């Protein structure tokens, strides 16, 4: 039941400007269920100590909670081993880690990296940085009119010099599930590894990294109902082993001397310094919540109803242009423009009606340019959102448009 799920999220019962909060900015960050809040509290109250290092009791509790989360994530992703799960501060940090370390080892002058035009800046700029450093070239995969990736072009864009392909599982603007499995297969035919930016994908899709066969999969905890400042990099062992460390510091070493320092085995090799030991354990209840909501037929029915309802309302309204229209792979995330009304104005007005939306370029400037817009308005739904909220959103949208146009 959606109502039961809602009750697990204390933040959702808030009032803003005297109106019930309708939180539709879930793609930016989700709210936290009580179990996540409790896990955080528990960690601070009864397990607050630095992990891995000390022999005392609290350090043991903290280390167990932290490493337990690694097991949860491994199972959640169906990763072959726990050593292939590296904790980071988020998706951005994970992409930067790979771009930097993989780039250091495998990208050289004249090489190429392929991304799509629909990527979040977090999956563009790290690659630009490494390309600049190495004198390599960033190539760009286009999208179709309906927002789907031009998958048929992937092979044409690959060359002998392509070292890695970095693609989102789901774009945070278009809200379409990309055929990642297919892209990975094409790239692997040419021996090219693929990084999947799963910041949105992990929230909406059941991810099996072995079935996808991707080489890297990254995501942030805060979009997946866990504490912010947590994130995951899954990487195939053969790559992680071959990559040099990203940051140097405590924990990531085996032995340090001025003559020669050797590095710790995976995953510690990539976890330099004190880790987010209060945050990481919250991934466990967060994943449990995700699995439960996926198994809940009522919730799934409501999500499908919301997607269909909003899709219909937005596409049948002539004043509105929806971007990402391929219904067969649509998740409940809608970015759109309204003729004659600026996205910022709509967001401001609807904020005062209690609705939290995202407006602007959504960290995807190249995509905005590709679509020929200066920004869009986005409504993104989570399992705790109801069809009634979707209806209220449409009602308020119409009222806001009437005020502006």
């Amino acid at each position, binding site marked *: 039941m959606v109502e039961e799920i809602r009750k697990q999220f204390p933040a959702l019962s808030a009032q803003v*400007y005297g109106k019930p909060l309708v939180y539709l900015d879930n793609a930016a960050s989700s709210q936290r269920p009580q179990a996540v809040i409790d896990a955080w509290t528990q960690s601070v109250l009864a397990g607050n100590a630095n992990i891995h290092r000390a022999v005392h009791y609290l350090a043991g509790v903290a280390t167990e909670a932290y490493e337990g989360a690694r097991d949860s994530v491994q199972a959640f992703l169906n990763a072959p081993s726990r050593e292939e799960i590296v904790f980071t501060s988020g998706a951005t940090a994970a992409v930067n880690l790979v771009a930097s370390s993989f780039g250091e080892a495998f990208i050289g002058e004249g090489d190429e990296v392929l991304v799509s035009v629909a990527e979040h800046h977090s999956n563009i700029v790290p690659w630009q940085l490494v390309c600049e450093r190495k004198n390599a070239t960033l190539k760009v995969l286009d999208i179709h009119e309906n927002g789907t990736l031009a998958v048929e072009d992937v092979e044409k864009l690959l060359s002998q010099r392509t070292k890695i392909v970095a693609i989102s599982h789901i774009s945070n603007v278009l809200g379409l599930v990309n055929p990642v499995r297919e892209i990975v297969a094409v790239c692997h035919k040419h021996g090219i590894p693929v990084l999947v930016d799963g910041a949105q994908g992990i929230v909406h899709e059941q991810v099996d990294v072995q079935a996808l066969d991707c080489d890297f999969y990254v995501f942030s905890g805060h979009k997946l109902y866990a504490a912010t400042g947590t994130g995951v990099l899954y990487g195939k062992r053969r790559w992680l082993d071959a990559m040099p460390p990203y940051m140097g510091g405590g924990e990531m070493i085996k032995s340090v001397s001025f003559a020669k320092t050797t590095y710790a085995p995976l995953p510690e090799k990539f976890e330099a310094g004190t880790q987010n030991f209060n945050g990481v354990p919250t991934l466990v209840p967060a994943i449990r919540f995700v699995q439960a909501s996926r198994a809940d037929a009522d919730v799934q029915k409501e999500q499908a109803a919301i997607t269909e309802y909003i899709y219909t309302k937005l596409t049948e309204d002539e004043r509105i242009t929806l971007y990402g229209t391929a219904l067969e792979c649509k998740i409940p995330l809608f970015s759109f423009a309204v003729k004659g*009304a*600026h996205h*910022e*104005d709509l967001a*401001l*007005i609807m*904020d*005062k*009606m209690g609705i939290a939306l995202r*407006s*602007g370029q959504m960290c995807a400037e190249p995509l905005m340019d590709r679509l020929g817009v*200066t*920004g869009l308005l986005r409504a993104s739904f989570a399992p705790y959102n109801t069809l009634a909220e979707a209806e209220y959103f449409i009602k308020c949208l119409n009222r806001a448009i009437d*005020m*502006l146009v």
Partner: protein
Amino acid sequence: MSLEEKKQQIIDDFSIYDEWLDKYEYLIELGKNLDAFPEEKKTEERLIKGCQSRVWLDSEERDGRLYFTADSDAIITKGIISLLISVYSGCTKEEIAADDFGFVAEIGLKDNLSPTRANGLVSMIERIKELAGQGRQ
């Protein structure tokens, strides 16, 4: 009207509305009624940085007084800049430089914008002060 009278008028106008939605409605009206701003004036250097929407501001000096014109692609922002320039157009540079822009706080505008938009408002105020400071033509 003097600067103080103009400010008081805006404070009075704003106080009629209890609801922020109504205040937005008022700002939208102001935005819609703002004099047209020529396309060729929408240059990079007239663009105010720090706003989510695009805002252009220009000033002209006549008889020792500054007159502002402005535009934005977002209507509420346009209403806000319209409100600012209606207050400060016709003032001397000294008057503007000496003003603390406190009436903006008095009408609660800044508090009711999200931090990013409040920054936009601050940027607009800074640009007005800057234009008064250097009196750029």
